[in-house]
């Protein structure tokens, strides 16, 4: 479904990694491992098309993602270091805005999504009052709400408490069970609950 062939990425003019190839089939999770500065975030941003690769190809359903453009982005959900949350809007409004952008905008599922991440009590307050962990959970709610096949997550477990980690793992397993795909980076070790995990190591 997602193939990467001889991918090479640079930051500025400093080469990060090259000749990186891997494939991801439905139901699989790819865990990108590597020390800081080896280009994990750049790899993820390149996969979703925010960053331009120096060399190599990224194919989704056999076609080059760059050529697919909007079509590919319609099947992708990305959570980066930033949570993509507008402080002035309430959690519900944030989700409606994100849903409006990504095309799936049915209001009652917004409440359900807030419920799954246990943010319903904060439904009416501006999101800026939420803690870093709660904002991360709101970003998870966006993933659950949009139901895109490919999830690309940069450190999804950072700033999460234990309860939220289980929430995130449940969401991941549910997504994989539905035939979804996940590419993520993470320092915490969590794979114990998820069976088919492939690794990609970026060395210094």
């Amino acid at each position, binding site marked *: 479904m997602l193939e990467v062939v001889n991918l090479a990425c640079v930051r500025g003019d400093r080469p990060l990694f090259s000749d990186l190839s891997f494939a991801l089939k439905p139901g699989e999770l790819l865990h990108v491992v590597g020390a800081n500065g080896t280009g994990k975030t750049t790899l993820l941003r390149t996969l*979703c*098309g*925010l*960053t*331009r690769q120096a060399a190599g190809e990224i194919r989704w359903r056999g076609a080059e993602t760059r050529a697919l453009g*909007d*079509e590919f*982005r*319609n*099947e*992708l959900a*990305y959570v*980066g*270091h*930033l*949570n*993509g*949350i*507008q*402080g*002035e*809007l309430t959690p519900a*409004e944030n989700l*409606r*805005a*994100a849903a*409006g*952008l*990504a*095309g*799936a*905008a049915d209001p009652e599922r917004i409440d359900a999504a807030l419920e799954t991440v246990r943010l319903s009590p904060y439904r009416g307050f*501006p999101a800026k009052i939420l803690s870093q962990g709660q904002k991360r959970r709101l970003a998870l709610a966006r993933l659950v709400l949009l139901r*895109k096949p490919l999830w690309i997550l940069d450190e999804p477990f950072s700033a999460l408490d234990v309860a939220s980690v289980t929430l995130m793992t449940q969401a991941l397993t549910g997504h994989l069970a539905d035939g979804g795909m996940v590419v993520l980076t993470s320092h915490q070790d969590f794979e114990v609950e998820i069976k088919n995990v492939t690794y990609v190591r970026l060395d210094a």
Partner: protein
Amino acid sequence: MTSPSLLAATANVLRRDLTVAWRRSADVLTPLVFFAIVTSLFPLGVGPEPSLLRTLAPGVLWVAALLSVMLALNRMFANDYADGTLELLALSPHPLSLLVLSKVAAHWVLTGLPLVLISPLLAVQLNLPSEAMGALLLSLLLGTPVLSLIGAVGAALTLGLRGGGVLVSLLVLPLYTPVLIFGAGSVAQAAAGAEIEAYISLLAAFLALTLTFAPWAAAAALRVSLD
């Protein structure tokens, strides 16, 4: 997956920006107050002599309006860049140039339009003849969107850069000169009782030109800045 309807998405972005601005309405006032202050500086600088102010009024009003729009430019993308919502915009399945167009529309409604509305008030202060009021309103109405559109390219290019505010002005002011020439020119012509069709049609032409190119250029600039 329902195929995402474009109109709903752009309307959504516009509504979202307006609600955010509504909650922080103080921000809307800053360009307006700046516009008022700058125009009232001139009489202090050049003296209150009515006939002198009358000749200066078109140029002063237009330059002040232009500077006020430029001042508010970095607000267009800076907040969304900081909190990550801009990445969601770039990753949305809708064409980025149309989403940028709705952001520019929101910016214009929050800065350009208010300027147009209060400009007659300040024109009276500068002793602008009443027959030029129509030209002032019309030229600003056509001109300020062009300023926001060109400004969007400048704001997108300088996203997240140190000294972004001043840098944007360096980038966009030279590009503002044609709009200033015909905007202020039309008001001056009207004040002298002459015809302004030519000026207004040129301003409309600029609007059409920037409406087609600026969103695409700003989207490309955003993609470069998010790289």
